[in-house]
């Protein structure tokens, strides 16, 4: 056990040092930008993992919440010249409020109404982005988002953004880990295991699931706000239904209800997406973007079949998951 802990800390230290020195090692801005996007997506997927992993509900609206956060920053900074802190605040509060409105009626119902509601919501929001006229800039979007500026420190270079994003990822990671160990986290896991028993013990599952859903939208909005500041121009495309599916895939691959999972899931899916972008044209010269969604859909199905608990659960290996035999039970009873 102490040996395992040592290995764990060594690994964390190595990963930490790796992340800090990465911008100096990477020669290409392209790779650095990929790491930034991975960090941003990890926030969004962390949120999705909370509603999927803890509350056991699928949300197909995560890209829409991500988009609302991004458009909040874009609109408020370009049209109304808001500063960074209030704009980012709006980017998180707005999706949270919307989530509360959608979640209240749907999360009370036992079946997968949340999946349906968020699917419709995601499509609707995407239309609003595209047809929003001057406010959203229509299909071509909004340009000229200023640099992120905290107390006069301007994030005008990729490596600065890289540190900012990953600092936020680590903070969120720590926050979620605390949540996981809190009374709320235990209660959420209890609901996942047995909603009846949770209710019977006085846990209000509908209220708790709503909180989880609002928090998931909060994280998506935070990611979206940072994303808008990073790319400085936005259009409806990165917030479409396809992206919501990718977020679900990332969450599932990373492992639901886990804490490192999102980073792992996002990393793998982004790497795969980039690889596909390279490889597929070599094989099928005129292939469009559709192949990607087919391919990801296939992976999602395979992941659900072969590793439904996700990849990151390999870390905390469950050794004795086999239930003890009735004989073991008899022994313990006889001993007492």
């Amino acid at each position, binding site marked *: 056990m102490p040996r395992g802990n040592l290995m764990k800390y060594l690994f964390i230290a190595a990963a930490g040092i790796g992340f800090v020195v990465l911008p100096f090692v990477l020669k290409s801005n392209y790779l650095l930008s990929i790491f930034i996007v991975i960090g941003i997506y990890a926030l969004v997927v962390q949120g999705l993992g909370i509603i999927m992993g803890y509350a056991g509900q699928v949300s197909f609206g995560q890209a829409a919440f991500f988009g609302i956060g991004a458009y909040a920053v874009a609109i408020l900074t370009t049209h109304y010249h808001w500063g960074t802190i209030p704009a980012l605040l709006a980017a998180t509060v707005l999706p949270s409020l919307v989530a509360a409105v959608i979640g209240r009626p749907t999360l009370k119902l036992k079946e997968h109404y949340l999946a349906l509601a968020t699917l419709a919501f995601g499509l609707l929001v995407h239309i609003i982005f595209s047809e929003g006229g001057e406010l959203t800039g229509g299909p071509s979007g909004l340009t000229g988002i200023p640099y992120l500026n905290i107390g006069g420190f301007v994030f005008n270079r990729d490596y600065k953004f890289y540190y900012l994003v990953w600092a936020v990822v680590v903070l969120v990671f720590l926050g979620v880990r605390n949540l996981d160990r809190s*009374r709320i986290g*235990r*209660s959420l*896991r*209890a609901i*996942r*295991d*047995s909603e*009846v*028993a*949770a*209710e*019977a*013990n*006085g*846990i*209000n599952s509908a209220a708790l699931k709503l909180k989880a859903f609002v928090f998931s939208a909060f994280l998506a909005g935070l990611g979206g706000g940072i994303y808008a500041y990073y790319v400085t121009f936005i259009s409806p495309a990165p917030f479409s239904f396809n992206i919501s599916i990718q977020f679900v895939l990332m969450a599932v691959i990373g492992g639901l*209800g886990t804490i490192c999972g999102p980073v792992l899931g996002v990393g793998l899916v982004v790497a795969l997406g980039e690889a596909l972008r390279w490889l597929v044209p070599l094989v099928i010269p005129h292939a469009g973007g559709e192949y990607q969604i087919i391919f990801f859909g296939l992976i999602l199905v395979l992941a659900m079949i072969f590793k439904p608990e996700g990849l990151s659960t390999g870390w905390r290996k*469950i050794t*004795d*998951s*086999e*239930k*003890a*035999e*009735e004989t*073991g*039970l*008899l022994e*313990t*009873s*006889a*001993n*007492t």
Partner: protein
Amino acid sequence: MNILDVNGLKVFHGRAQALRGVTFHAREGEIVAVLGANGAGKSTLLGTLSGIYAAKAGEVYFKGEPIIRQSPGYIVKQGLSLVPEHRQIFNDLTVQDNLLLGAFHRYIKDKGTLSEDMERVLGIFPALRGRERQTAGILSGGLQQMLAIGRGLMARPKLLMLDEPSIGLAPIVVREIMEVLSKLREDGTTIILVEQNAAAALRVADRAIVIERGQVIISGKPSELVNDERVQHAYLGRTGGHAGNVAVAFGY
């Protein structure tokens, strides 16, 4: 004094009526066995008393207070606790966390008493001792049932309701659990015990009721029920072992 009074309780699952006017009571400090065939409405009854299912009509008084439209959280707080069917322990959580969540309603306010209560539960179920940090899902069936009961006790119930605690367990474990229930009653806890295993339930019960198709068809002392041919009838043809052999099992 009656700790629980139920009058004309009617409950629907969707359009299907599961309870058709159930009336019964429990006196303070007794064990009431609730018997009945599959689908009779036993679990629906317990679920409604806990506030998980909504009743269409009827009254429920707990310690003289109406609790019929109250939330499960409120009802647990009043001292009415349910150990649900199929154990329903929280598989991914540790034994300790399972127990702590049983005391959910005073988790924050009353932290000091939690370890005291946990100690009491471990005293009642010594087989759980030393396993506090184990994941509940890997426990054997018997230990899981003990954990489920322990979790129910963490709420400090005045009235504990158990839904088929003996199902799937070895006879020796069933006996152990029944002994615990007798002991709890001696300490003043009232118990409602839903069982398929009529023989085991009637052995510890002070009174019993039999439910058939959502109605109480018989109530009385175990010794009366054991020889009642309607009880034999209600149990005939199901779950092999107990069918029709209630009296034999008792040696009456």
